[in-house]
């Protein structure tokens, strides 16, 4: 009851005209920033942070919270419409979102992304409200060994789950890990594969890589495989009415969004695991337990729902360790932590006691920000889907330019622009040779954290690998990895034996 009373007080603080306006402005700006390839929520919050110092702290944090949510909604738009993920978690959204657009269901994909983002975000915020401090402590049970095992589980499932040829998926995963070892990693402090280039010392920048491999390579494909929107009859299917989900579709994404929301939130609270892991593991879960799991990756709204709900719930989850323990769970939470400290607030166990108005104002503002973001996002769907009607003769040069500008704006570096171009050409040839690109990018994102956690775990145990078996959580995760790897092999063996049996019987 205390929590409910505190939350109501929080709503009383946050539901003023100026705060609602701040949430609306924040959500709108967030959607724009999130939709621009190359810019993510960290950039958005960092840009808006100085402006909010003039405001009352609660109004400021409401605006930032809404911007954060807006970014999560906007990040999926370019992934669905153009196959250019706005940020890392949107890589998973593009797996089903872009094929849906190609089939003329871009509106449905956007609608699904928004609704499942809302459901996942709401699940995440409710869990944060009622279990925030408990969740934060659960998160702390994940030390380096457990985090390493969790990321290894995600890595092992990538190759098997994505693409028609698991072997090529696995090779792509290996390439992603290899690319991630370029530069001075945090685990070793030693430059690797930099070839004495100062541009490679910090490693490969993710945004130019993803823009090149997904966005620019798409331009190269479009050059020959042109789709005329009018010939394909898309124009008749891109109205608001056609974008809405029917009753059956809406009911099919509800359970997906709910279970992805819970899983995404739990992953989000783990220090450093982030929204990408949340989004990807939710997709993996759906692929395994969903009714149409086998169909995911071919353009199914359930795939979009799993990814987006997991992503938004993880975003809410990353606030739990920030507020309860003062530990940011994501890059964006780290920027917010800086903002909180500049307002004179010290996140940590005492924040709930010393500044209850602020904490509950923030939590209630997340409900407000989520509602504002979904309303703003749904309002612009009819305009967004019209993008799909633009002919290839205009789309090709414009997308190519967006790729260049987006990759430049991350670090203001021309090296990144050239790198993006090279990555696009390489990805084009890899895709033509049927090597899937998504496992490469996901492995690239997950590897630095895996390498650091593995190193830390073995440092703690003085090199004894048994640390992974002594921890019940890590041991369970490693058992799951074994099952993940062995299951497809065992299934194939079983099928071969059965086929031979049938053949022998027939003879």
């Amino acid at each position: 009851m205390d929590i409910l009373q505190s939350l109501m007080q929080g709503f009383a603080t946050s539901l003023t005209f100026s705060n609602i306006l701040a949430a609306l402005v924040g959500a709108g700006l967030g959607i724009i920033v999130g939709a621009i390839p190359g810019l993510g929520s960290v950039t958005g919050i960092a840009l808006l942070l100085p402006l909010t110092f003039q405001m009352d702290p609660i109004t400021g944090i409401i605006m930032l919270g809404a911007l954060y949510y807006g970014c999560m909604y906007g990040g999926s738009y370019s992934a669905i419409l153009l196959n250019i993920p706005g940020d890392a978690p949107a890589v998973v959204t593009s797996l089903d979102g872009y094929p849906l657009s190609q089939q003329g269901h871009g509106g449905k994909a956007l609608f699904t992304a928004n609704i499942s983002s809302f459901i996942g975000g709401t699940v995440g915020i409710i869990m944060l409200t009622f279990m925030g401090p408990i969740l934060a402590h659960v998160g702390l049970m994940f030390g380096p060994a457990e985090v390493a095992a969790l990321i290894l589980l995600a890595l092992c499932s990538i190759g098997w789950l994505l693409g028609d040829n698991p072997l090529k998926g696995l090779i792509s995963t290996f390439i992603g890990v290899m690319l991630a070892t370029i530069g001075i990693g945090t685990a070793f402090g030693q430059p690797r594969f930099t070839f004495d280039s100062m541009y490679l010392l910090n490693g490969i920048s993710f945004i130019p890589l993803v823009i090149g491999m997904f966005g620019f390579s798409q331009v190269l494909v479009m050059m020959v495989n042109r789709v005329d929107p009018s010939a394909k009859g898309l124009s008749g299917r891109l109205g608001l009415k056609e974008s809405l989900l029917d009753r059956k579709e809406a009911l099919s994404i509800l359970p997906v969004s709910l279970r992805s929301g819970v899983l995404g939130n739990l992953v989000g609270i783990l220090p450093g695991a982030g929204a990408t892991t949340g989004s990807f593991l939710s997709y993996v879960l759906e692929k395994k337990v969903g009714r149409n799991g086998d169909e995911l990756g071919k353009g199914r709204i359930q795939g979009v729902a799993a990814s987006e709900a997991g992503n938004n719930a993880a975003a809410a989850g990353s606030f739990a360790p920030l507020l309860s323990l003062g530990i940011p769970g994501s890059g964006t939470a780290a920027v917010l932590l800086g903002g909180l400290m500049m307002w004179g607030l010290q996140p940590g166990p005492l924040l709930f006691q010393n500044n209850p108005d602020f904490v509950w104002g923030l939590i209630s503002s997340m409900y407000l920000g989520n509602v504002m973001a979904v309303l703003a996002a749904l309002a612009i769907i009819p305009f967004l889907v019209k993008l799909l009607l633009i002919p290839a003769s205009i789309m090709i040069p414009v997308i190519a330019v967006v790729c260049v500008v987006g990759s430049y704006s991350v670090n203001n570096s021309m090296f990144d622009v050239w790198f993006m171009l090279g990555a696009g050409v390489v990805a084009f040839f890899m895709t033509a040779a049927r090597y899937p690109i998504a496992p490469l990018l996901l492995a690239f994102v997950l590897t630095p954290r895996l390498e650091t956690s593995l190193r830390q775990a073995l440092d703690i145990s003085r090199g004894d690998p048994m640390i992974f078996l002594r921890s019940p959580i890590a041991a369970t995760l490693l058992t799951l990895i074994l099952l993940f790897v062995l299951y497809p092999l065992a299934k194939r063996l079983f099928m071969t034996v059965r086929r031979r049996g049938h053949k022998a019987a027939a003879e």
Partner: protein
Amino acid sequence: MSSVNQEPAHEGRSWLSPLVTLGIIVMGLAWAGFGWWKYGVWMHNGPGAGFFPVVMGLGAALLGSYELLRRRFETDRVSWRNLWPAVAMGLAIASIPLFGMVLAMTLFIVLWMALIERQSWLKSVAIGACAGGAIYLLFGMWLMVAFPEGALMAPFT
């Protein structure tokens, strides 16, 4: 643009798939070699900086070799025309030190639409100007991205 994101592809040049696979094998062996000899696989209490490069490099090289030996090469149809945007954009990027980012990208859109897509010059200039203006307002003004100005534009700024 993963393979799952593509429409059913036609079978294409048979040399492309083995060539890409061969490239992956060479990359894997290079990573494994550097990791083994230069960075060290194991330190006194755990994996060294070369551990992941060696394991992943050998993994990629072994699986790639298996893929080559299996001789089941599947390739989508590709043509030199696919690479035109990369070549044209390469030229546009190379011209940025002269024209600056915004003008170079505007010129790219105008010239591409007029010369490659055979659209009218009026339409090409209108779309190029709109896109260039949007990039300048959104990235240059609002997000304050410091675009390269270019030698030709320097006297005017």
